[in-house]
C-alpha cells in the first residue's frame, strides 16, 4: 500500500508525496513523508497533538511551503514556481477555528473569493453560494454576520465558503473539534456528500467514531512521521505499531 519513497509521484493520484519534509528552524515537523491519495478518497489523519497533522495538510495548498521532497497535486509538481492561485483554487482548506471574515455577511464570506479570484459575476457567485449554503443546511442564515452564528453554524459556513471555489480537494483541520454529536453527524453527511461529488477529502480529527465512520483510509502520524496507512477497520482493531496501540488505548480511556 505504501509507495516506494524513491519512486516518482503517481501522476494519476490526486495527491502524491514523496519524502516530504518540513522544518521549523532545526525542528523537524514533517519527516520524509510519502503516500498517495486517489481521487474521491476520504482520508482521515490521526495522531497525538504536535505530531504534524496540521502542518501536513497545510503543505498541500502551500500555506506552509515544504522544505524538501516532492509534492504533486493533480499530476502537477508543487514548488516555489507554482501558480499558487490555481493550486489554492483546486485545494480548499477549512481551518480548525474557521477563520470566517467577521466584517462580511455569511453570503459575502462565500462570494468574496470567487468574485475576486475567478471574477465570477456577483449574481452568479451568490446563486452558487446559496446552493452550497443549502447543501450544508445553513441557507437561512445567509444575511447574518459570523458573530451571530453558533460554532456549528460557523463551521458549516466555512465549509460552504471553501466549496464556493469549487475545489477538487478539501482539507479539513479538526472540523468536529467544537461540535456536539448531532452537529458531528451533520459534518459526516456533508463529507459523504462531497465524496459522492468526487471531491477528495483529507480530514484531521481527534474524534475516533467520526474517523471510523468516514475514512476510506487512516493515516496515523507521530513526531512528523507516518507510522501507518490502513483502512479504519484494520487500524481500530489491529494496529500495526505499538505507538498506534498506545494512542488508541489513551483515546478510549478518555
Amino acid at each position, binding site marked *: 500500500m505504501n509507495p516506494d519513497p524513491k519512486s516518482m509521484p503517481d501522476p494519476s493520484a490526486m495527491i502524491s508525496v514523496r519524502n516530504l519534509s518540513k522544518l521549523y528552524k532545526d525542528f523537524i515537523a514533517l519527516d520524509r513523508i510519502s503516500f498517495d491519495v486517489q481521487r474521491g478518497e476520504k482520508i482521515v489523519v490521526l495522531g497525538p497533538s504536535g505530531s504534524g497533522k496540521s502542518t501536513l495538510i497545510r503543505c498541500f*495548498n502551500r*500555506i506552509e511551503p515544504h522544505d524538501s521532497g516532492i509534492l504533486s497535486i493533480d499530476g502537477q509538481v508543487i514548488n516555489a514556481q507554482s501558480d*499558487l*492561485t*490555481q*493550486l*489554492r*483554487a483546486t485545494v*480548499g*482548506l477549512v*481551518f480548525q*477555528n474557521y*477563520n*470566517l*471574515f*467577521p*466584517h*462580511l455577511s455569511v453570503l459575502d464570506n462565500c462570494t*468574496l*473569493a470567487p468574485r*475576486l*479570484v475567478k471574477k465570477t459575476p456577483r449574481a452568479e457567485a451568490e446563486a452558487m453560494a446559496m446552493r452550497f449554503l443549502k447543501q450544508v443546511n445553513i441557507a437561512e442564515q445567509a*444575511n*447574518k*454576520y*459570523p*458573530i*451571530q452564528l453558533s460554532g456549528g453554524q460557523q463551521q458549516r459556513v466555512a465549509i460552504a*465558503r*471553501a466549496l464556493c*471555489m469549487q475545489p477538487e480537494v478539501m482539507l479539513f483541520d479538526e472540523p468536529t473539534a467544537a461540535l456536539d454529536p448531532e452537529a458531528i453527524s451533520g459534518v459526516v453527511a456533508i463529507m459523504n456528500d462531497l465524496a459522492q461529488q468526487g471531491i477528495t477529502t483529507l480530514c484531521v480529527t481527534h474524534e475516533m467514531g467520526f474517523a471510523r465512520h468516514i475514512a476510506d483510509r487512516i493515516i496515523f502520524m507521530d513526531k512528523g512521521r507516518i507510522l501507518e496507512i490502513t483502512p479504519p477497520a484494520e487500524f481500530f482493531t489491529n494496529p500495526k505499531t505499538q505507538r498506534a496501540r498506545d494512542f488508541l488505548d489513551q483515546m478510549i480511556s478518555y
Partner: protein
Amino acid sequence: MTHSMAQFMRRCPFRLRPRVLAAALGGALAIAGSALAADPDLPGFIHDGTLTVCTNPTLPPMTFVNGTDVNAVDGIDMDIAHRLAEYWHVPMVVTTMDFTGLFPSLAAQRCSMVASGIIKLPDREKNFDAVSYQDTALVVVARAGTPPLSSMTDLSGKTVAVQSGTSYSARLAKENEALAQAGRAPIIIQQYPTEDQVVQQVLIGRVFAFASQDVELYYRQEQLHGKVNVILVPPYPEYRHFALYIRKNAHDRELLEQAIATMGQNGQMAAIQKKWAISPDAAKALAHTPPAPMFRWDTFFSALTSTAFMRGAFITLAVAVLSHFTAIMISIPMALALNGRDSLLKMVLKGYVSVFRGAPTLLQLLFIWNALPQFLPVFREAWFTPFLATWLSLSINESAYQVEINRAALGAVDKGQELAGDALAMSRRQVYRHVIFPQALRIALPPTINEFISLLKTTSLASVISLQELLAVTQIQVARTFEFTEYYAAALVYYLGMVFFFLFLQKRVERRFAWADRHKATANES
C-alpha cells in the same frame, strides 16, 4: 491720571519730526542724480520686482488690522511701505506673521524688509541694517490712578509685562543689574507673544505696568477708555526711533535712507503723520467715556458671524483635514513596513517616528518655516505659503502618531484572517484590501478620530508662522479692539462646534460596524 497724561503728551507728543537731517546732505546729491534717470536705483532687497514687507500687525497705529479683514493690514508702516513701492515703481506684498518670526524671515530672504513698528537698536543693527522713519519714546504704563514714578528704580520688586521678541526685556534686565548692585529687588519681567496680551495683563491687574511706545499708547487711548496712564518716561537715549529693517547691505541702506528722506521732503511723510495723528484734546475727551460693559454681546455675535472668523475656521478645518489625510496616507505603508521584517528601512522609519513624536509640534512648525529655507532655498520662495508649511509639518508630525494606531490596528487583526484569504487563492493585495484593511479600519477609526480632534486644536500653533487660522484671526481682532472676552468666546464656540461635530461623527461611524458586536448586529437584523 490727567496730570501724568498731560505730562506724557507734553513730553512725547504725537509729533513726528521727519528724520531728514542726516540723510538730507547725502540724499540731495542722489536725488539730483535720480531726477535725471527715469527710475531711482532699485535696491537689492527688491526680489523679482516686488517689495515684500513682513509685519506683525498687532501694534497700532504702526501696523495693525484696522477692520475685520485680517489680510488688510493698515497703519503708518503700511502707508510708508506703499509710498516706498511707489517710489521704486514696484508692486508691494504684505506678509503677516508672529513677531518672533520677523527677523528669521528677513534672514531667510522671505521678505525685502521688516516694517513692524520696531525700534532702532544697536543690538539689532549688528545683524541687520536699520533706517529710521519715525520718532518715538518709551513709556511705562500702569492702570489709571497709579501715581507717577520718579525713576525706573521705583519699579523694583514690581511685575512688568513686555512683548516677547521686543528689546524691552533686555533693557529692563539692564535696569535689574543696576538694582542688584544697589542691593534691591529686581523688576519681575513677564513676556507675552502679543502686545494686546501685554496690555491685558495690566487691565486685569495681574502685573503692575507694561512698557510700550508713546505712539502706540496714544492710539490705544480710544480703546482703553482711560483705563491706563503713563507713570514714567525713562530718559533712555535709545527707543527714540522706529526703523525699517533690511538685510545688511550698505548700498541698499543708503538707497532706503534716500527714499525716506525724499518722502520727508516732498511732504508724503507729513501727510501720513497727519492721517494717523489724534489731537490730545480728543484723547482727553475719550478718556472720560464711561467704562465698557463686561461682555458686549453685539461684538460677540458679530464676531461669530463675521467672514473673518468663518474664514479662520475654514482654514483651521482645511489644514487639519489635509494634514491628517496626508498623514494617514504616509502612515499606512509605514505601518506595514514596521510590522514586517527587520530591514534598514524599518530602522530609518523607527528613527523618523521617534524624532517626530519626540520634538514639540511648535518647534517642528518653526523649524520648517524658518530653518528649512536656510538649507533649501526653494522653501523661501513665495509658493511656500504658511498654509503649505503647516500642512507639511503637521502631516509629518501626525504620521508619526498615526503609524502607531495603524500598527496596533493591523496587529489586532487575527493572523488567521490572512491565512484564510491565502487559502481562498486571494492575492496579497486582495487579502489586504478586502480582508485585513476593513477589519483594521474598525479598530483604528475611534483612536484616529481622537487624533484628528487633537490635531484640529493643534493647528492653532500655526498662528506663529502667520497662518490665518481661527486663533490667529482671534488674536488679530483682539489686538485691534481689546475685546478679549468676546473674541475668545467666539473662537471657543467655533472650536467646540467643530469638535462636537466630529465626536458626533465618531458615534455614528462606530454604529456602522455592526458586525463587530453581536447585539448591535442582531438589533440591525430585526
